[in-house]
């Protein structure tokens, strides 16, 4: 599904590389935690997968596509094939829960009929069917993140990328989000999630890729956060 082959990323205005000859392979259907200190390169790795940034050297492959070489005009279609969740939810403030999720479908040209059929089901999945007509400002952080998850998952992407989706949430709310991600993962969607959240990582017992200064220093199946070599 995902392959990094000797991938380095050097930002223009920085003197140390954000990623340093990374090799990483992720199979279809896996759930992978990206952990590591602030500035270790987790977000940079995700940005390469989205083609928000281009690798300085090496090749990033997603679903057989060489992402670095993907022409700009094909980037939108490429992004539609995946779902993305951010720490700050990134909901549209003027739109209701229903419309925010619908936005993800409208933007890729789904018909009104398809949208009206699909959205109740997905809102039910994230447990927000009662709050479909609320605005984001009328929701708790956890609820907002569930809306964002619904939007990311509404088109049933093969790959879902999440950059600290629980970063702004309290522990019990985070658990709810993780349960949801786990459910999505069990439908066959590959999930790569960057996080600082030790409790969650330890609880989930999924593959852990730990980074430090742009290097992968640990890659462990069913790992625990604390059990590092350090």
């Amino acid at each position, binding site marked *: 599904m995902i392959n990094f082959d000797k991938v380095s990323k050097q930002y223009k205005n920085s003197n140390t590389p954000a990623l340093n000859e990374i090799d990483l392979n992720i199979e279809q259907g896996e759930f992978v935690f990206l952990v590591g200190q602030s500035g270790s390169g987790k977000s940079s790795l995700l940005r390469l997968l989205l083609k928000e940034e281009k690798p300085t050297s090496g090749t990033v492959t997603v679903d057989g596509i060489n992402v670095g070489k993907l022409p700009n005009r094909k980037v939108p279609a490429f992004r539609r094939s995946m779902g993305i969740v951010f720490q700050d939810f990134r909901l549209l403030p003027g739109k209701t829960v229903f419309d925010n999720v619908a936005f993800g479908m409208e*933007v890729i040209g789904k018909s009104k009929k398809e949208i009206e059929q699909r959205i109740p089901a997905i809102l039910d999945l994230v447990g927000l069917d009662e709050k479909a007509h609320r605005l984001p400002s009328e929701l708790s952080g956890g609820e907002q993140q569930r809306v964002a998850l619904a939007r990311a998952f509404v088109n049933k992407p093969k790959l879902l990328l999440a950059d600290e989706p629980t970063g702004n949430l309290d522990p019990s709310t985070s658990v709810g989000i993780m349960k949801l991600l786990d459910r999505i993962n069990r439908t066959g969607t590959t999930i790569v999630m960057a996080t600082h959240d030790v409790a969650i990582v330890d609880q989930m017992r999924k593959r852990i890729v730990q980074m430090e200064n742009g290097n992968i220093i640990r890659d462990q199946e069913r790992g625990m956060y604390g059990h590092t070599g350090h």
Partner: protein
Amino acid sequence: MRLSFVSKEVGNGLRRNFTMTVALIVSVAVSLSLVGAALLLSAQVDRMKGYWYDKIEVSIFLCGDSSVTYTCTGSITIEQRKNVERILDTLDPVQNVFYESSADAYAQFKEQFAGSAILANISPDALPASFRVKLDNPENFEQVASALQSVQGVESIQDQRKLLDRFFQILKGLQSFALAIALAMLFVTVLLVMNTIRVAAFARRRETSIMRSVGASNMSIRLPFILEAAVAAMLGSTLATAGILASKYWLIDARLAPNLTFIPFVTWNEVLVIVPVLYLVGLGTTILAASVTLRRYLKG
């Protein structure tokens, strides 16, 4: 992208940016009105030229009793008049020649100024006899003038075109002036479009970044902005068109034409031809300016 979705976004955008949108509409309307006025003026000048050049004559005034130029020694003799006529016959551009005697001229004058006090001050022989010469092309005046300038019995030669040309020059000046202001206004419009789009793109950067991360194409991210500008341009162009049509109907047809019967005015056909030009210029500049701005401020 479905149409209803796009139009909803466009409506939202226009409402959010209300003052800017109004400014944009007014700016487009004003600059296009000026473009329209310049085009109208140019059509008017063409029409008048065609009409009047057709009627232009060269007047060759012949010597009378009181003439004092060196080619005159009292009134023209029959012999001299025959000579002038002969010379006119040899000139290529001359199409037809009409002789107007002093008495004819007075009769004509009397008719034109019937009931006016001027009549009393003019004696029947004060108006000189003349040849009225029609040329194939008024531009060939010089040829006639040089052939007759120093012929005995010819007092003076008058080219009506000279009078008209001075008038046309004034109109041309007016037209260039309108066009210059129109261009300046169009430039202002372009700046306004750029600024409006820049502000709109900034105000909606969150939305567009979300759209982009959800995988919306550049086209569908930019389209609402471009359509917003286009809708504003459309409204502006329509206002300008209404202004031009109104000035044809209420100014030219209702006020000017009935009072200035000797001037031929632009026809509806000539006015209607201007309309698509206005829309084209309005939409063209706006959409172009918007696209260029978006390319800079909404990078994909």
